[in-house]
């Protein structure tokens, strides 16, 4: 991994940021760069600041010190809609308005591309159709979101962010509510999008998923970065023990040959 001196290879980075909600400091003096074209997965125990970092990277949270840099400029300096055309975010919690249908919800992802006069262009329609096809929500298109299962609903939200068509895609626990098959399907989808050239940053809880899919892992602990690099290079028994306090054994994944974490009994 090369250092952050070449900013062209790091479109999105946080430099010495302090992140806080009111007086509660979540992270202090944190620096991290997202390599272009990477599939970066952020892992770490609950409440270690993963979501907060994602919120800062997508301009939802302005750091109280330090800056987040997007394409060489501080992210707060861009018009909000321009950021939203470059960085897409799937938040952990969203609210679907009562009575909204799938296609309508997915179409709302097009907001940063629209204006008062251009509310539904051909590009909008094509992007919505492509996003629904990619997430296999096309057959749900006319259904009420309220009536969907948790997994279907999650795929619809993913479709909404996809419709935003951003080169950088930040996903906060996208596999929550999904059964194992749909989790793998969603991660495959992320991998395909990544192969098409999109940079993906996802918060995941499953270390084995992280190791298999990520090209780059950021392990966080207590608001700081514990390790950062390709899974094969950083994922050690020591790291898992340090970050999660979980003794484990690491063997090569028989399918993908990536690190496979086998938890051991505590103590």
């Amino acid at each position, binding site marked *: 991994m090369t250092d952050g001196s070449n900013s062209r290879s790091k479109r999105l980075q946080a430099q010495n940021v302090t992140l806080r909600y*009111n007086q509660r400091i979540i992270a202090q003096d944190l620096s991290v760069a997202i390599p272009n074209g990477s599939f970066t997965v952020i892992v770490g125990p609950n409440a270690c600041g993963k979501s907060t970092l994602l*919120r800062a990277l*997508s*301009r*939802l949270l302005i750091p109280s010190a330090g800056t987040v840099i997007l394409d060489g400029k501080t992210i707060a300096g861009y*018009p*909000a*809609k*321009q*950021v*939203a*055309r470059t960085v*897409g*975010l799937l*938040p*952990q*919690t*969203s*609210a*679907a*308005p*009562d*009575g*909204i*249908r*799938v*296609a*309508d919800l997915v*179409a*709302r*992802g097009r*907001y940063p591309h629209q204006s*008062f*006069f*251009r*509310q*539904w*262009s*051909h590009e*909008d*329609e094509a992007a*919505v*159709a*492509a996003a*629904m*096809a*990619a997430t*296999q929500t*096309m*057959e749900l*298109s*006319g*259904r009420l979101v309220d009536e969907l299962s948790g997994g279907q609903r999650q795929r619809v939200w993913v479709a909404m*962010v996809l419709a*935003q068509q951003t080169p950088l895609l930040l996903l906060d626990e996208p596999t929550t509510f999904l059964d194992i098959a749909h989790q793998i*399907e969603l991660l*495959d989808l992320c991998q*395909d999008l990544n*192969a*098409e050239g999109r940079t993906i940053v996802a918060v995941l809880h499953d270390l084995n998923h992280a190791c298999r899919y990520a090209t780059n892992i950021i392990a966080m602990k207590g608001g700081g970065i514990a390790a950062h690099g390709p899974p094969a290079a950083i994922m050690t028994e020591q790291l898992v023990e340090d970050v999660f306090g979980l003794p484990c054994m690491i063997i090569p994944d028989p399918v993908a040959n990536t690190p496979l974490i086998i938890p051991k009994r505590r103590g």
Partner: protein
Amino acid sequence: MTEPNHNPSPVLRNRVIVRVARSGPIDFGRRVAAIRLFGGRLSMRADLRSLGAGSILLLLAGVIGTVSLASGKFPIPLVDVFRALLGTTDDNIRMVVVEWRLPRLLLAFLLGTALGLSGAIFQSLTRNPLGSPDIIGFSAGSYTGALVVILLFSGGYYATAAGALAGGIVTAAAVYLLAYRGGAQGFRLIVVGIGISAMLGALNAWMIRQADLQIAMSAAIWGAGSLNGLGFEQFWPVLLMLILIVPFVLVLARPMRQLELGDDAAMASGLNANRLRLMLMIGGVALTAIVTAAAGPIAFVSLAAPQIARRLVRAAGVALVPAALTGGLLLTAADWGAQHGFGVQLPVGVMTVSIGGLYFLWLLLREARQ
């Protein structure tokens, strides 16, 4: 997107098939027409059910309006009503229809639309069908402002209107600031608003009790909300104000729908959620204040209209224009009933309170069951 050529999993192949099979227009689950004009410079999605419902609401308001122009102490045949509007009748009929009855009818419709819009804005902001301006204290605040003018300065119509305007705005600012904690969140607005509303209600009752009987009576009548005796000189200022405010609010309709997705999703799509909320509140408060200034606090229209409209158009979230038209129709119908339904002229606010009370009860029972 092009088909990536690496790692062709079964899932991926499946996806490509789906993409090919459904290349037609997107199924929105309702009838939608894509309108694109001037080489795509102007484009929108027209919802046919909303258009249909809107037309029917306008038509009904037109019918009730016509009947309302014809009825009264001097019943006038419908033919003569139309002739009077076209200016081809004798002066007596023209005076009754155009100068006496028409301004009141137009005011009822306009004020109704303003209430419907304002209610829709606050219900969207609070994501709650109870989040209407009369519940969260703005009407009570306007009444306080008006009472101060009536009781302390024995002010006339315009002074009272100004007092109501000021009272409503000050109350709204107070509710906003008290509910503010790094952004004003919906539910806090409701809770703080209900509290302020109760306090102002007590203050209002106390002020009326302190006043002379005559003044207290007129204050109480104003407090019910009434269109009695209003004419063109009250209509023009209202029209002018609405021409200024309504376009501002309608431009906010799209961002407002986006905000219904939650703050994080809205901000991630390029919205400044807190600024938008403030602008929506200013628009909603201005609309309520205009109505209260012109006719007193007319209750329940802003509470009921957005919910009735939602059910009519089966919209996602709250729809502004249908809510406005429903409000217009409701107040037009209520004012006709208040004038002619009971032998005596009642303040229209009494009508809306009685109808609205039933609606409110139904709403609370339904919410309680869920």
